[in-house]
């Protein structure tokens, strides 16, 4: 039958795209001194999304990932550098790419993520590059109940002045370049706890549903922390993506100034009438060997019911989970995981606790290594609606763990064991299911029943690969007819 061809335009009223076909994570492997390097990216259905692998020999029509003979600049110059190699285990090494603290909301400290529009599965950066990215991993604060996870908010410890607050795209390098280096797009949120309180790094949470922002401050006198909740805060996504919104109302100046001291957002966070003070916790965080991490970094979740749950890495002890009731009273320390020597950001900004959130924005998991810089794990997952949590600890002195959000409410959890043969070890955890069926504070066996021999890694011989969380359009998972619109 002949087809009728017409020049008349076809009207399309709707266009659909399956959100699950977006990239979810890439497996990264590198044995560049002899066995290749690269990324294999999978989508939310665990089907292949893209591949980008280099050959250790330039004779096979791929780019070369081995030094010499025309490899790209970074591969050529940093080949065999431990920060990008997978031939060693984290253990007591500080550098390896599969360290537990290397992944977070901003992707991977040492590597670049695939996005919904990228054709490559990922790429490397330099040693200096990962140092710069890691400063952003240190400062990024949690965002919950957000359908459009295309932005990030940051808090920088500003001593007794409070917290230097920034809002911008979900990009470590945008934050580093514009806010940390140039000092623009940020303003100080005053400290509100009292005389001895200091601002912290990355210790806050924006709850989009309740329009509240929690900020944690540290009391240098008592060694304890205290949350402040700012109520009816300005739309922080708008502030993040529409940069000019931060400057409305600013006066043109002829004299130099440093931090922003004008605009409605700045004004809002100077007025103590806008905030509610919670009680100071009772756990003294000043005595741990790694004092900076324990004092000044708290992965925080401000729940819909007003409860606050905070995960703090306590170097060379383990971790502490604090919880506050909705009325601001301190419920107490609900978990203290402990084992042996570990290090936080006082050893460098690339170490310490990290967090990620499900696509739904309703489950946050926070974690840190349990052994030295990057092996083993302490992990908690917090339900945003009510503050219920589950936990896991592994006293593993050899391997790291890496995770990423997948699907609507799930997390893919990987174990960076030797992938020579089995590929990467992984399991998908439906967090809404486990938070529903398990008791508050229950332990879940994240290291049990791994699947392997399914997800390949882009190198061979003995290697310990990791995964790189992708930066996909989370709004596509929601019934959002106007994704990416900035209010």
């Amino acid at each position, binding site marked *: 039958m002949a087809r009728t061809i017409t020049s008349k335009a076809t009207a399309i009223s709707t266009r659909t795209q399956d959100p699950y076909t977006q990239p979810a994570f890439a497996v990264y492997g590198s044995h560049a001194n*002899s066995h290749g390097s690269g990324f294999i990216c999978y989508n939310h259905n665990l089907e292949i999304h893209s591949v980008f692998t280099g050959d250790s020999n330039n004779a096979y029509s791929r780019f070369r990932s081995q030094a010499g003979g025309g490899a790209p600049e970074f591969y050529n110059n940093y080949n065999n550098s431990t920060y990008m190699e997978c031939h060693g285990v984290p253990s007591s090494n500080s550098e390896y790419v599969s360290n537990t603290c290397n992944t977070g909301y901003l992707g991977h400290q040492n590597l670049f993520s695939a996005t919904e529009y990228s054709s490559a599965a990922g790429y490397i950066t330099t040693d200096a590059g990962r140092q710069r990215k890691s400063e952003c991993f240190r400062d990024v604060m949690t965002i919950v109940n957000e359908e459009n996870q295309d932005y990030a908010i940051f808090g920088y410890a500003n001593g007794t002045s409070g917290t230097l607050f920034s809002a911008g795209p979900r990009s470590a390098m945008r934050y580093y370049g514009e806010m940390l280096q140039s000092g623009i797009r940020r303003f100080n949120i005053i400290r509100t706890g009292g005389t001895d309180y200091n601002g912290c790094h990355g210790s806050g949470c924006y709850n989009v549903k309740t329009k509240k922002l929690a900020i944690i401050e540290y009391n240098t006198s008592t060694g304890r922390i205290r949350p402040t909740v700012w109520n009816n805060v300005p739309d922080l996504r708008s502030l993040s993506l529409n940069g000019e919104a931060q400057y409305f109302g600013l006066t043109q100046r002829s004299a130099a100034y440093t931090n922003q001291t004008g605009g409605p957002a700045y004004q809002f966070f100077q007025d103590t009438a806008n905030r509610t003070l919670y009680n100071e916790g009772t756990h003294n965080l000043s005595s741990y060997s790694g004092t900076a991490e324990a004092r000044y970094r708290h992965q925080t979740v401000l729940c819909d019911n007003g409860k606050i749950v905070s995960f703090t890495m306590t170097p060379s002890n383990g971790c502490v989970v604090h919880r506050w009731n909705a009325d601001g009273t301190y419920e107490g320390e609900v978990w203290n995981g402990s*084992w042996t020597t570990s290090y936080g950001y006082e050893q460098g900004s690339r170490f310490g606790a990290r967090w990620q959130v499900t696509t739904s924005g309703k489950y946050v998991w926070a974690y840190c290594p349990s052994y030295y810089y990057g092996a083993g794990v302490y992990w908690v997952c917090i339900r945003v609606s009510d503050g219920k949590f589950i936990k896991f600890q592994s006293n593993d002195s050899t391997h790291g763990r890496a995770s990423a959000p997948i699907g609507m409410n799930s997390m893919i959890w990987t174990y960076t064991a030797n992938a020579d043969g089995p590929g990467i070890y992984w399991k998908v955890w439906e967090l809404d299911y486990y938070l529903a069926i398990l008791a508050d504070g229950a*332990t*879940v*066996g994240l*290291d*049990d029943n791994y699947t392997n021999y399914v997800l390949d890694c882009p190198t061979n011989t003995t290697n310990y690969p990791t995964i790189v969380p992708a930066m996909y359009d989370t709004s596509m998972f929601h019934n959002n007819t106007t994704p990416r619109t900035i209010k």
Partner: protein
Amino acid sequence: MAFLIFRYNQDDGKLTSVTPYDEIPYGFENQDNAVGIEYDYDPETEFISALVLSEDKTTVTNKYPEKTVEEQKELWQQEIDQAVFSHNLNICVGIIKSQVRVLIEKLRFSELRAVELDALNGNNDNQITLARWRVAVRDANNAHEQLLLSSVTTQEQLDQFNLNWSEKFLSENPVPEFD
């Protein structure tokens, strides 16, 4: 009473972690590479990572009996450090060896030219030159590898050891080229 899980490496069966839990973690089942056992664990007298399972995986023992917790921790740390050092040493041997391949790859064009010129000249002089260069590469590699293994006994020494021998070799022994 605690519930201890001993986890083993699937590759070589070595113990990778001993973790105490206040309850059986959800989803846990005894497997070849993970064994759970109830044990009266007292952190005041025993360091968790000093505990091992008997061969039949039914009894928990402390591999450093009569030692204080701090001594147990120290002995365990020494074991871990030694294991990490051995692992890193093997990696460094691999990095040294990989430079042989990089150097020999540089001969590709010279090899073609050598065969061609030797055929025209009715001898194998150029191919012998290349063979000698390749032998020199391997000898230099072996010498550097031997230097590493004989002189480095600690992680600190390994961190200081220069693994790159090929750069100096190339400066002293340029790749043979034939007109």
